């Protein structure tokens, strides 16, 4: 839609950027490092994240054209490109989350806007508002079972699925983009809480955090 103010909110020099987990990791002084960790956590900071709103048909055309990817056709689906670096996730019948390597988001937004033309849609940059956390390890699923009420059994949660759900007393997006592990998308202001919760829930299994 025209008459929408595009805005590149990313500076050219990003060397002093601080991710949502900066404070938590900083405050910890030394990161947990278990000898034989059942759980491994690591933040994937500074990804480019856009929320797309609009009709599925037009949006599908646009992302095919611009990203060479299909919009997830089914509810709760996540599709990734071959590199695994770009993904589109269904959030609601008219809402999708696009995650791309940091720095690509503004150009992507511009191209999508161009492609979508006069259709009724919205694109919102939320890159500063949320961060990705990777959760891996032999006990990762049990940690999730302690934290969310959503069924994370492989039968119910295959690769290619992503849900927005309750995580302890926060809201979180949980996705499986590959076989060995999970991606959690944490809201910035809740990131410290979620991180502390994850550490606490993982403690009995041994936990390592990598940066």
């Amino acid at each position, binding site marked *: 839609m025209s008459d929408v103010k595009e805005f590149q909110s990313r500076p050219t020099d990003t060397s002093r950027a601080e991710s949502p987990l900066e404070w938590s990791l900083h405050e910890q002084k030394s990161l947990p490092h278990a000898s034989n960790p059942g759980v491994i956590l690591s933040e994937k900071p500074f990804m480019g994240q856009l929320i797309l709103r609009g*009709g599925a048909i037009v949006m599908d055309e646009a992302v095919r054209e611009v990203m060479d990817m299909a919009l997830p056709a089914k509810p709760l689906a996540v599709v990734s490109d071959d590199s695994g670096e770009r993904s589109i996730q269904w959030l609601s019948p*008219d809402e999708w989350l696009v995650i791309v390597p940091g720095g690509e988001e503004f150009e992507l937004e511009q191209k999508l806007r161009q492609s979508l033309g006069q259709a*009724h849609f919205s694109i919102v940059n939320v890159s500063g508002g949320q961060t990705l956390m990777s959760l891996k390890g032999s006990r990762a699923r049990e940690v999730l079972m302690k934290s969310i009420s959503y069924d994370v059994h492989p039968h119910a949660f295959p690769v290619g699925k992503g849900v927005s759900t*309750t995580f302890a007393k926060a809201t979180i997006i949980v996705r499986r983009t590959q076989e060995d592990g999970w991606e959690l998308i944490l809201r910035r202001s809740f990131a410290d809480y979620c991180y502390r919760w994850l550490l606490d829930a993982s403690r009995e299994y041994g936990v390592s955090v990598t940066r």
Partner: protein
Amino acid sequence: MFYIYCPYCKEHREEEEFHPRGQAHLLRPEDPENTSDEEWGDYLFFRDNPRGIHHEMWVHSVGCRKFFNITRNTVTYEILETYPMGEQPTITAETERVRKEQGVQAADGGWQTVGARPENKALNEETSS
């Protein structure tokens, strides 16, 4: 704790993901200017409070953020159907009464029938259309 079928996410989710938002199918008077104080008070404060079948609006707050409707029995807490905004319930106190009179047994198999209409076209529709 309820297990609620979200007609947009198309699966059951725990009640903790939702919030109840009162009576469904509530309409704001079209011409507030010409609405009496009594009618306006009714619209603001007077709600159905049945012991039995109730149509209520819920929002999938931490999921898809969509509002939808539930037909639920307020005594047994059984959810009889969930359906998107803009649709009408297929099960009402009246249909239940008729069904009871005809001696039809309650259908088995899960907690609720899924979606009031067989086909939900929401995926390829804009909600505003």
